[in-house]
């Protein structure tokens, strides 16, 4: 039990993560937490979903267990499995079980990437039963009030295969995220990327331009995260244009024509 306590403590967030609220998402999330309702975050990549969860966990003083979902994720990866240790079978809690036991926040990132039959395991946990059956141990865990389930996905991937089942999504309180308004985004890039305001403003403008290129073949524009990374490169003494090329243009596309057009935007701005 002691080891378990130690493990969950690693997931506590001690320092306040930087998060700038763009609307009433915090109030809604806190209300959901107190009501024991699970949370669904949707929005494009790099717009602050994960950072929001970190901030929320810090505010609520709960450990945050994050699982990045992938298409080979099995139920035992979430719930737990028996392992052999010194010739004996030892039960090992998966991240979901660990979070339920400790009353932590379990955050399943990019839930649509996981196979649909895997995600069904969260169903009893996501409604008013708030239970997690562990079949292999014959155990039925009931989540304490401090436990919270949150999932995220990016509706931008226009694939029929990657959509949430209606029965899954209808259990959640949904929060829609988008890139912040330009002024807020400048603020964020300034602060996180440790940049001067003018460079941050131009970076945000560059991002704005890339986000309108959906028709030209760019699936997603530059995210706030990319801008912050660019800022960090600039902070390390990389020239602005080089930093933009490395952290924005090349990160967004392999298409030579689009790359050339993005470069034109960069050279126009900086």
């Amino acid at each position, binding site marked *: 039990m002691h080891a378990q306590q130690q493990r969950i403590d690693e997931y506590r967030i001690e320092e306040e993560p930087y998060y700038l609220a763009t609307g009433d998402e915090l109030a809604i999330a806190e209300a959901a937490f107190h009501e024991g309702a699970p949370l669904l975050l949707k929005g494009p990549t790099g717009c602050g979903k994960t950072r929001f969860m970190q901030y929320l966990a810090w505010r609520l003083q709960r450990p945050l267990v994050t699982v990045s979902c992938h298409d080979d994720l*099995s*139920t*035992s990866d979430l719930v737990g*499995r*028996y392992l*052999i240790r010194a*010739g004996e*079978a030892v039960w090992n809690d998966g991240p979901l079980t660990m979070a339920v036991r400790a009353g932590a926040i379990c955050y399943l990132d990019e839930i649509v990437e996981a196979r649909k039959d895997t995600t069904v395991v969260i169903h009893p946990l996501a409604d008013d039963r708030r239970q997690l059956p562990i079949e*292999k141990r014959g155990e039925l865990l009931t989540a304490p009030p401090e436990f919270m389930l949150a999932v995220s996905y990016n509706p931008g991937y226009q*694939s*029929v*295969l990657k959509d949430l089942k209606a029965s899954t999504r209808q259990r959640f309180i949904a929060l829609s995220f988008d890139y912040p308004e330009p002024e807020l985004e400048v603020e964020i890039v300034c602060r996180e990327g440790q940049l001067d305001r003018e460079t941050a403003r*131009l970076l945000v*403008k560059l991002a*704005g*331009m*890339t986000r*309108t*290129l959906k*028709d*030209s073949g760019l699936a997603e524009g530059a995210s706030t995260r990319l801008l912050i990374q660019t800022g960090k490169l600039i902070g390390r003494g990389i020239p602005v*244009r080089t930093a933009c090329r490395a952290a924005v243009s090349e990160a967004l596309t392999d298409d030579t*024509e*689009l790359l*050339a*057009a*993005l470069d*034109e*935007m*960069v*050279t*126009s*701005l*900086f």
Partner: protein
Amino acid sequence: MELEILKEKFYRLVAPSLPNEWDVEEALAGLTLDDAQQIEEIFAQIPAIWPVSHSLCFSYLSAAGPAVACLAPEELSLWVHGLLDCYETKGLRGAQLFMEDVAEHFLRQIRGQGGLRLADVRPRLQTYVSGLAGRELPLVAAEAAATDGESIFLPAEIGLYEDQERNFLFFKLIASFQWACLHAGVFAAPPGFPSGKKKAHPLERFFSTFARPDQARSLYHFFETARVLAVLKMELPGLMRQAEPLLGQLTLSADDSQELTLLDHLQQGLLRDKWPEPGRYGRIDQARLLLDACRGASADNRASLEAVHTLMPALDQEEDLTRTEPMVFQGTLLLQEMRNLGLQQQTSRELRMMQSLTVKLHAGPRPPEAGDEEERQGGSGQQGQDTALIVDTPPDWPHGPPPWEPMHVDNPEAAGSAQAESAEHQRGTTVVEQTTQSAAGQAGRMFATGSGVSQAGEEAWQEPLVYDEWDYRRKGFRKKWCVVQEREMARVQTGFIEQTLTRYRGHIRRLRHQFEMMRTTERFVRRQRDGNDIDLDAMVESLADSHAGLPPSDRLFVRLARDERDIAVHFLVDMSNSTAGWVGKSIKEALVLICEAMEMLNDRYGIYGFSGMRRLRCEIFPVKRLNERYSAAVRERISAIGPREYTRMAPAIRHMTSLFAQVEAKVRLLIILSDGKPEDYDDYKGEYAIEDTRHALLEAKARGIHPFCITIDRQAHEYMAHMYGEVNSIFIDQVDRLPARMPEIYRALTS
């Protein structure tokens, strides 16, 4: 070389055609070269040109002599390539012009001495401008730079500088400048001149308050240019930093004129910071102050209007500002065009408003039956009926002239906000079309209903797609050559499906069972290092080993492995005339059987038929789209498959390839059912057709699609292997075996 020998050579090359002797003689008369090597080279290009156009070939022969003189030997084929492209886009006359001046039209381009053409930079620049504007703002080649709010006009070629880098920068500068004109509100209405319903642009009306409006216009344009440059400096500092040296070096009309106008002084001041001594000309000092005010006022055009107000009275009567050329990047102010576009937007807005009004108007006095109708049909259907009623009685039209007639309305927003639907404006040719289109289909539908066009006729229409075609003779594409259109197929209710189902009853049962076995399987893989559960056998062995002092295995787990079938398949069915009769019947039966079997699998599959005649009418008939269910409608469409026209296979394959581009699947399979060689009514036959099809298949393979062909053509082995590759096709000798074989083939292909 003797003319007779040349003639004989020529006839041999173009056989079996027998062109008129005098035409040939005339064309060959120009070839008085002694160099046999050059003659060989010129003649080597004839097979590529002759099938495209005989007249072009004659023109080519006449022009080839002088051309060869200035071309390097390896450049001739490139030149012919350019010539054919030119012919296909601009016609015979264009091609002749192309040939007239080899140096101007060809050599300068390929040797990099010419200016930079808009066509070459468009891909890069268009995306850049779209990014700037946040909407589609097409770049159009024109005489001078300008914008009308919906497109940006740029010179077709810029050759101001020797190096293309600076030419490109200048292109970019002009495009950015024109965008900034829109962004900064150069075209906004002056205060006191509301746009209203007046025909003239508010700025035009402002200029006409002066005795010499054209002078006011020039002054305004200059001051706004200064302001826009200041805005650009703020918005795109990088660009302006790069462009600064270019701007300083620009040729101004002051450079070769003795008497400088006020505008000349101002231009020099703006670009070169060259002013006459302060205090010498009071007028210029005053203008300079106004110019500084304009550059400081980035918000709107009021400072420029103010400047025009102040300077106009101070202008000498003899001084003609229009003598001063505007700076190259400035271009012209298209006030008239902008207003016309504004008219269309406003008209479409009014149309929509009237449409909603008519619905409201008729809500009251409708007879009770109509009310019942509405409940049955739902709101939108009723709306169409109401508008139809109004349109049927034109005298009741409440707003004067019917809105599909061209009329002028002003556009207050032209300077700024983007209209989603306004991109349509650029494509149409007449205002009538544009207004109906611009209401996002609403208006068009409304009038179509009014004039009695049936809804069914409308829904079948889809935007045609254009694909390139491979010409093996010139080793290049004929650009935008084939027009492919997807057409809905009429559904047919016959007993065909039932008969087939009954006839192949036993077979279908067996197939279903076989296909069921292919479904995604789950199985436990034992003795894994990592897994869902403990493998007890391995565990016991390992413990025993350990007790016996042997090294124990660490492979102690069982893992659940899933063999997922992530397959998308398109069946492309030849619907050419030759499939009439029992061939067609077998193909249809095969489709029914494969559909019945496929229902047992989760593989996504689509069925498309193709036929058509000539390159401009390649038709694709969707029988079942990829994500459609195998429903009664699909069965009825299978029944409707029948022989139509010709087999131009490559455009259909290219269309399938483009459909596949939107599909995410591990395996993408294209199965083509055909009864013979690709062939069309025109010259599309023989080697040409086979090479084009082969190229289309290679393109498909390059995109990760596996093509496979099932054919019943007895001669197939002659060309099949060449077209599809050795293992990617199968020949079925007995047509009646096709229905039974096809599911087998599919099973073999995918497992």
